[in-house]
């Protein structure tokens, strides 16, 4: 969406992200609230059902105790010990009959006496009750069970207690010949016998239906969710108005200035408005630094040289263009950043850099004219940085091999001299019209013959994480294979015009994850040869043992691949 107000080009990215996250958080909150409400209602329902079922069970137990201890002895006293009147002396019959009457008034409380071998076939245990018999029999210490059971599509909360046979029950439940005639007349001799003292004769249970209550709880949760959803929509609308007025419109004004400024140098980079502003503030800081540096020189002279405009910033220093007042020769001057010169640790890095420039000789390194204190005067650096060339797209096919030949040769020279650069990136590589490459910064380089201040100080990763090998992100310096990774990123960028990773502010851990999941360069350029793709992916291997071990091997493969392109006339 393009918003033309205040000259904005695009102010929807940040807004979209803000509202997407707000919606997700509000929806998630609504869902969580509903779930918590349902869980709490269900918990209360269960607690209530447990309390009720316990009361019913105790009541039944009291009836059975009364029959056993009061009614049956009195009947024996009145009618003789041989008499057995079921309606007045059978604990099971009396308790079951009373509870049947009770359920006539209270249909939601279902009492049941179940047995595996009952006198009355109505009391025969069903499959669930059979399972519970097994459960109680497995451990005689188990005296209570409760839970939710589904029967005939209805959920019941059920409480159960076991009933073990006592000595006084044996006349009716032991041998058929000892049983009272009235019992045999009513139920026959088929079931209810052959028990011994202590046997599990039956299970008393109370079932309370809970499906309706659970449905109520679910409906309540749904209502809460719907209310939250409605509230969220209203809240989001209000936030939208507020965010648009307080942030987006003002941000748009700032952004329009930035984009206007960047229009000349190319399209804004990926990322939202804040990323664009962040990048712009970075450039502004660089500009202020250079302005400060220029202003600090009173007048802008270093020895016999006049300091002109800044060319590019390195890791520890600025490179300025300048000229000699004596010979009028054009030169470049390397001046440390203020903060580098004030910090002993970074000053040691700058000293290493200057020493390396002074001692190393290579066509891709600007020749050193002289050193004046902390300032290194080198020969003039012409051309544009590789970064500005690549910002408008990939490198021309015919330039790829000449550029990388120089780059690989330079890296091989470093490695042969025991130097690891650690910071190969397009910003510090200058390419002139004759395609001569110049490396103008070695601020993070380390030599095996010099102490490395960064390692000595135990500093974390230094440099641009985008071009950094995974081991450098883990602050493990000094391995030449880290430079091969940097070359891999440059090769990816030069052949496709894209970086293998998206820019943006990420944690080191996040960067490591990104480096592990490398995108194929053919995703950005389908015509890229398989051979070149393999070379790039090998150079970008996360595991340094799987990477090219020597930069010369990388160059040989690249050269072979390049030769094939030129023979076959295919794009490289």
């Amino acid at each position, binding site marked *: 969406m393009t918003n033309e107000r205040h000259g904005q080009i695009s102010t929807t990215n940040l807004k979209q992200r803000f509202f997407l996250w707000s919606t997700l958080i509000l929806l998630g909150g609504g869902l969580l609230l509903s779930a918590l409400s349902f869980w709490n209602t269900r918990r209360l329902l269960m607690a209530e059902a447990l309390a009720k079922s316990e009361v019913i069970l105790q009541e039944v137990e009291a009836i059975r105790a009364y029959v056993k201890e009061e009614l049956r002895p009195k009947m024996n006293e009145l009618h003789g010990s041989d008499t057995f009147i079921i309606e007045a002396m059978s604990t099971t019959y009396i308790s079951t009959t009373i509870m049947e009457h009770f359920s006539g008034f209270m249909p939601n409380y279902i009492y049941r006496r179940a047995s595996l071998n009952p006198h009355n076939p109505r009391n025969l245990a069903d499959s669930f009750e059979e399972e519970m018999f097994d459960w109680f029999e497995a451990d005689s210490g188990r005296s209570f069970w409760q839970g939710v059971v589904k029967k005939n599509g209805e959920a019941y909360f059920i409480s159960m207690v076991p009933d073990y046979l006592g000595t006084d029950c044996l006349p009716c439940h032991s041998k058929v010949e000892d049983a009272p005639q009235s019992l045999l007349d009513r139920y026959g001799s088929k079931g209810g016998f052959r028990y011994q003292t202590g046997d599990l004769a039956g299970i008393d249970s109370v079932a309370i239906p809970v499906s309706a209550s659970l449905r109520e709880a679910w409906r309540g949760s749904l209502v809460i969710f719907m209310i939250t959803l409605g509230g969220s929509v209203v809240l989001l609308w209000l936030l939208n108005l507020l965010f648009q007025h307080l942030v987006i419109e003002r941000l748009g004004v700032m952004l329009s200035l930035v984009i206007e400024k960047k229009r000349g140098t190319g399209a804004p980079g990926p990322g939202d408005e804040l990323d664009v502003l962040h990048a712009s503030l970075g450039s502004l800081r660089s500009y202020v630094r250079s302005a400060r540096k220029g202003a600090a020189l009173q007048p802008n002279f270093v020895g016999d040289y006049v300091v002109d405009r800044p060319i590019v910033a390195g890791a520890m220093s600025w490179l300025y263009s300048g000229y000699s007042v004596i010979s009028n020769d054009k030169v470049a001057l390397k001046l440390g950043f203020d903060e580098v010169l004030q910090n002993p640790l970074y000053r040691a890095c700058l000293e290493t850099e200057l020493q390396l420039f002074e001692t190393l000789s290579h066509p891709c390194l600007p020749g050193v004219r002289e050193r004046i204190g902390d300032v290194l005067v080198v020969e003039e650096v012409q051309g544009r940085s590789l970064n500005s060339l690549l910002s408008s797209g990939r490198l021309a096919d015919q330039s790829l091999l000449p550029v990388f030949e120089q780059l690989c040769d330079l890296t*091989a020279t470093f490695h*042969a*001299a*025991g130097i690891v650069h650690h910071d190969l990136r397009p910003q510090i590589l200058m390419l002139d019209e004759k395609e001569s490459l110049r490396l103008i910064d070695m601020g993070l380089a380390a030599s*095996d013959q010099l102490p490395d201040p960064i390692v000595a100080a135990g500093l974390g990763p230094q440099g641009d994480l985008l071009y950094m090998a995974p081991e450098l992100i883990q602050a493990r310096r000094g391995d*030449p294979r880290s430079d091969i990774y940097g070359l891999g990123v440059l090769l990816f960028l030069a052949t496709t015009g894209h970086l293998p990773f998206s820019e943006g502010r990420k944690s080191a851990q996040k960067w490591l994850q990104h480096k592990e999941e490398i995108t194929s360069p053919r995703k950005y350029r389908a015509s890229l040869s398989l051979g070149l793709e393999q070379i790039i992916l090998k150079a970008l291997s996360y595991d340094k043992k799987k990477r090219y*071990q*020597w930069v*010369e*091997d990388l160059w040989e493969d690249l050269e072979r691949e390049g030769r094939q392109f030129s023979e076959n006339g295919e794009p490289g």
Partner: protein
Amino acid sequence: MRLLVFSDIHGNLEALQCILRDAAGRNVHRSICLGDMVGYGPYPNECIEVLRSLKNCRCLAGNHDVAVSWKTSPYGMSSAAKEAILWTMDQLSDENKDYLATLPDRLDLADMTFVHANPYNPRGWRYVLDRKYALRSFAATRCRRLFIGHSHRPLIITRRHLLAIDLQAVSGSMRYRVDDTRRRIINCGSVGQPRDKDPRSCYLIFDSRKQELEFYRVAYDIEKSAKAIRSAGLPLELGKRLYRGI
């Protein structure tokens, strides 16, 4: 990557130029000189300058290089060696003396270590020619391949297990595969004063892709070198031994 490894030039410019010409046609990427650029021979400055101008070349310090800088005394050496050192001290330019004084004793490159004599006492200059000193050398490093010079005899020592080695003298030009996981000490022989009864200069190339060592022997104009030794006023025996390779 193809790595040229050579050692013990001892001021023999003729031999050095011959091996560099020979190696130039063998697609070499980097070079490592394991020390003793000077001593015995009549062209110390010239040899140092050739090596300094060689692209992607690193040099280590040998016992003769250290002795000419007075970092160790030359009086512990044989009389001919001592005489040659004292002569060399007079010949060397200040710049080359400074260069020799800054040379490192040891280099580590990926899974390879390079020293002049041995890694356990680099400035003790003990020869590694038998089991005892080979095992000490293995114990002093963790690398897979240790490249040494100093004894002027090309040699491959393979560690069989913790206490045993295989010692194989290298005769003539030959190829040797090192693609297994065994640790090895590789002596690249001498450029300027071979002592294995073969007077030809010796050097080796390590091919990291093929995992192969290529030993080369190159004949050079010994007469010219011997004559230069005589002309320089160095002990005559130093010229004579070049013919016999001892």
